């Protein structure tokens, strides 16, 4: 039995939990998730959801204004400004900084965040900050995101931070207000799911393809109610950027969070970053991090096995991330499907303006977006630039590259990646969420078809009537050049 904490809520009382915990402490075998969850339990009131302490709260302009209003109305302060960090990312234009924001409602929302941060004493990486960027890009690159933490943000892609072996999940605005006021959340304990990825990913097959392959297999609600732990040799072999891409997409499988146990790759990434622990604190932190990986023999509520070696580059064809096919495959036929699947497939194909059964490689595109919290980090840009080098974007395609942060942008420019992109005909823009969700001026026009490195292909996500196909950065760059989807494994690198 895994401590008293797996008792149903009705059977829980604090005394019982402590007793069971102490008597069985030596025998307990815990998963990564359980170790972090248990270490952050502040209170377990009988008959109520456990109260979890939150180490880091990331805030952005879209889901926070109503939360700050709630604090003001109740006369409550922000309990821990030093555990709260804000940036602007969703709304901001990717035109050169200093260009006035023409969307007055967006400007008002940004101004609200600025004044709220000032009023409540919160650190803000603002429009003009050299460290501004997508909240899920800057957390890790500033060393704010660390193994063993609980991290929340009013954004579903907070699951990204789980790549470090943190428990990180998205919340709504009421919970944003709750965390601002209490630094805690009342949470029902999620279930655990292990996704064990055996083998190694082949050349040209990336973390994005792994994520799409998993969602294609388990479905967009395959992990609902669960926290996923990604494990196995194919996951161990991923860089931190790759792990972030994988954990980022956990929410697209319905998961509460995704996690990868910290290892040497994690420690090497965090070391020396601006807000990472230093000196004696560093040694202490690393020794704690090394205790976090799941104990041998610990049990999960659900286990899924994936053969990583069998995966290939994927392209989504429909209107959710589970509607996915190998680049060498075809859009599905609808005949032979059950009623519910058939209707969903027909609606998706109608929206996407695709005929059943056509080859994925025969789908032509109008736009390419390389960016988003899924795929806008330096490694993503390097991969895309390697494909673009010496080629030119198809004359019928408009392609843009939006770095995830100012730090990524500077690093890419130091390496000359921007020149490669610009010489190949890609637009090189300022950092932000951009066309992943099209809250700023970067949107698709009705009917336009886009190869996108983002995370959602929902109807209208990138602009009303726009048609989104999710792919990896390499596949997006190759599609920009070819004018249609093409198998990156056959690419002529120059």
């Amino acid at each position: 039995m895994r401590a008293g904490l797996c008792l149903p809520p009705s059977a829980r009382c604090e005394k019982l939990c402590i007793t069971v915990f102490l008597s069985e402490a030596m025998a307990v075998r815990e998963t990564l998730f359980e170790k972090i969850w248990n270490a952050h339990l502040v209170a377990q009131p009988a008959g109520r959801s456990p109260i979890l302490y939150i180490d880091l709260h990331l805030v952005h302009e879209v889901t926070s204004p109503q939360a700050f209003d709630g604090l003001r109305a109740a006369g409550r302060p922000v309990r821990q400004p030093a555990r709260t960090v804000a940036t602007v990312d969703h709304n901001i234009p990717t035109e050169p900084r200093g260009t006035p924001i023409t969307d007055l409602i967006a400007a008002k929302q940004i101004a609200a965040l600025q004044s709220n941060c000032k009023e409540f004493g919160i650190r803000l990486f603002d429009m003009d900050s050299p460290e501004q960027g997508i909240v899920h890009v800057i957390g890790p690159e500033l060393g704010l995101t660390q193994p063993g933490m609980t991290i929340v943000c009013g954004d579903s892609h907070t699951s990204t931070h789980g790549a470090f072996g943190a428990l990180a999940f998205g919340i709504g605005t009421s919970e944003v207000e709750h965390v601002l006021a209490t630094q805690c959340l009342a949470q029902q304990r999620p279930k655990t799911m292990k996704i064990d990825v055996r083998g190694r990913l082949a050349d040209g097959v990336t973390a994005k393809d792994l994520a799409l392959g998993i969602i294609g297999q388990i479905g967009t609600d395959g992990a609902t109610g669960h926290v996923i732990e990604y494990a196995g040799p194919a996951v161990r072999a991923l860089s931190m950027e790759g792990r972030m891409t994988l954990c980022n997409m956990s929410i697209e499988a319905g998961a509460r969070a995704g996690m990868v146990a910290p290892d040497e790759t994690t420690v090497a990434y965090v070391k020396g970053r601006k807000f990472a622990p230093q000196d004696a604190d560093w040694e202490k932190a690393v020794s704690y991090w090394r205790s976090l990986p799941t104990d041998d023999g610990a049990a999960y509520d659900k286990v899924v096995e994936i053969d990583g070696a069998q995966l290939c580059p994927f392209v989504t064809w429909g209107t959710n991330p589970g509607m996915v096919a190998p680049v060498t495959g075809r859009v599905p036929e609808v005949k032979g499907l059950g009623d519910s699947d058939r209707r969903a497939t027909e609606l998706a194909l109608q929206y996407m303006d695709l005929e059943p059964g056509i080859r994925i490689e025969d789908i032509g595109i109008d736009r390419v977006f390389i960016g988003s919290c899924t795929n806008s980090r330096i490694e993503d840009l390097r991969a895309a630039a390697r494909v673009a080098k010496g080629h030119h974007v198809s004359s019928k395609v408009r392609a843009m590259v939006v770095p995830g942060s100012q730090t990524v942008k500077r690093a890419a420019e130091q390496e000359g990646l921007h020149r490669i992109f610009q010489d190949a005909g890609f637009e090189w823009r300022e950092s932000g969420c951009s066309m992943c969700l099209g809250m700023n001026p970067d949107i698709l026009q009705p009917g336009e078809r886009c190869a996108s490195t983002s995370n959602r292909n929902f109807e209208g996500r990138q602009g009303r009537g726009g048609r989104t196909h999710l792919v990896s950065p390499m596949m997006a760059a190759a599609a920009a050049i070819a004018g249609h989807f093409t198998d990156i494994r056959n690419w002529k690198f120059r």
Partner: protein
Amino acid sequence: MKPFTVHRGRVAPLDRVNVDTDQIIPKQFLKRIERTGFGQFLFYDWRFGADGKKNADFVLDEPRYEGASILVAGKNFGCGSSREHAVWALADFGFRAVISFSFADIFANNSTKNGFLTVQLSESQVVELLQRAQGIDDYQLTIDLETCEVRDDQGFRAKFPIDEFVRHCLLNGLDDIGLTLQHEAKIAAYEAQHPAPAVLKISRP
């Protein structure tokens, strides 16, 4: 928060699966800084054409479903983004509850903070309710949170599961933050053992 005890109302069927929050409230309406006024934008891209004119054939705008306060929909309702605006839009439009056979986690969580009920029934029960809402004029359901039961006047009766504490909060309209702050001493004790990193402290302006 408005308590939810027993609600009876007209039922609108939305026979689609994986209804995501981008459909419930498209992103162009997320820039408002208030909690109110989102109802007019509910399902905007389905309800309105690109020219801003209403699509006559969208189910919620059929006269027979006017004033509906209970929505019945296919699985995985509310998937996608964490935007609580989706719940605000449904509630502001006049809905008090959604019935489906599965919900996305964050959407379900957000609902409970707004006195809005997500009712989980079995697939066959949801299919039955979709058919009744489509086939019976002014089809009404009663959702009883006291007994955790959904029933109609035609003999449908089903129990639904709900976390006991969530139910307690909904029945009494309790403010979550106040409940958590009842544990002030324990939070303070935890914080004394786990101080915020000094490197993140900034001086107040």
